[in-house]
């Protein structure tokens, strides 16, 4: 089937089998493609991409769902200012994902920063002296722990990832001149 989609901001047109998974299409598209396609079956979580804004394993997206889709891989993402926030947080904190999962974990962290932003935007204190304010304004550690399960590499702990999210979020808000 013929597929037209956008990958990393550029229009892309290919002919592929309807059931061909996106990770294989991406691998064939680019030699420098950073996804580590090791498992091909939703186990490793090293093939994450943004698919219409949602961070998903590309091995779970068949070609027939790609028509009109907007796909962002790590290669496209690393050219954005958003990546710079996370990179700074890695440098400041002194830890970062290992080489194997770097691309996917960074995209996963970006998706969690977006979630944190949504939580903060929709937060409205019901009580000024609310003791739960901190909890309600943040992603719970249980939530983070659960979400990062999608990437099986254990090079960073949930609390390290939480620290990266908080710091990169802070940089982003400062950069855009918004209050926390």
């Amino acid at each position, binding site marked *: 089937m013929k597929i037209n989609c956008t990958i990393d901001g550029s229009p892309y047109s290919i002919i592929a089998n*309807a059931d061909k*998974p996106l990770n*294989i299409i991406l691998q064939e598209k680019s030699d420098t493609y950073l996804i580590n396609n090791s498992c091909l079956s939703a186990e490793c979580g090293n093939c994450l991409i943004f698919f219409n804004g949602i961070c998903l394993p590309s091995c779970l997206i068949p070609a027939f769902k790609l028509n009109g889709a907007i796909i962002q891989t790590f290669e496209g993402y690393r050219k954005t200012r958003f990546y710079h926030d996370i990179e700074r947080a890695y440098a400041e904190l002194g830890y970062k994902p290992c080489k194997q999962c770097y691309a996917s974990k960074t995209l996963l962290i970006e998706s969690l920063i977006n979630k944190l932003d949504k939580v903060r935007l929709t937060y409205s204190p019901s009580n000024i002296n609310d003791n739960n304010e901190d909890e309600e304004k943040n992603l719970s550690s249980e939530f983070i722990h659960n979400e990062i399960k*999608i990437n099986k590499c254990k090079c960073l702990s949930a609390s390290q990832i939480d620290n990266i999210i908080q710091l990169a979020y802070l940089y982003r808000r400062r950069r855009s001149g918004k209050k926390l």
Partner: protein
Amino acid sequence: MAKNFNNPSIYTPKTLNEVVSILKDNKNIYFFSGGTYILSKKNNYPDFSNKDIIYLGDVAELLKINHSDKFTEFGASISIQKMINSGMQTLGKNTIGALESISTSQIRSLSTIGGALCTPNKRFFLSTILSVLQAQAEIRIFNKKRTIIKFIDIPSLYDENGFFKYTEPTILTKIKIPITHTKNQYFFNLGSPLKELESTVYFGFNFSISQNNIDTCHVCISGPEFFFTNTDFDNVISSITLPLTYNQINNLLHLLKEKISTSSIKISNLQIERAVRLLHFTLKDISERFVSGEYA
């Protein structure tokens, strides 16, 4: 000579009538909803089965959500994440918590109700959750001459090994969940269904209380490759007066072990042990809450 791999045709019907006419013309075909199970099977691509695909994600009837005083209905192509988002008010905290324990939000945004319930030879947590909530599934069986529509209980969809029983082209169209007392449920999801076949256990317990008695109770224990519900066992618990004594709890644990071992399900010792401990925790917790006046 190398076998030619399949280049499937993909059908994207917009209505159930279109699904029926595609099925009439094409017998060698399979349903595709979220694709998380289909695409996570080892060596899923390239495919040599020569089958075409019907994508159910665009079928309008399967995307409906209906809230009434007595039921909430979800179309089969609704994702588990959407079920969570739109069921916040009606399903209750415990059920929402159970749904949230299924994988991650990314996978839940792809996984559909139909896919989770109809995977041919593997059970997922959703079947256990819906089973104890007394949900019903609407299925349509397409045979040569006509389409048969049935509403059936969730446990009736499966055999003891957890295999989906309906082999003819059968489509699950929607589920109907009665609104119950949302506090009286316990759900546990231990393990990883795709990898830990012999240790994963799903546990569901739903009950109602009238005065000092457990009035009705539904228990479901399952794993990726077994599905266990037992009306006798449910009835024994349903006639119990609270609070439970230490001996009563022990007897119930023994009874559960006995019922499991006399059934023909294939369950590992670890899974039995986990099931018994989860029941122990649940019964103890209900008793303690009863004593502290929570159910008054």
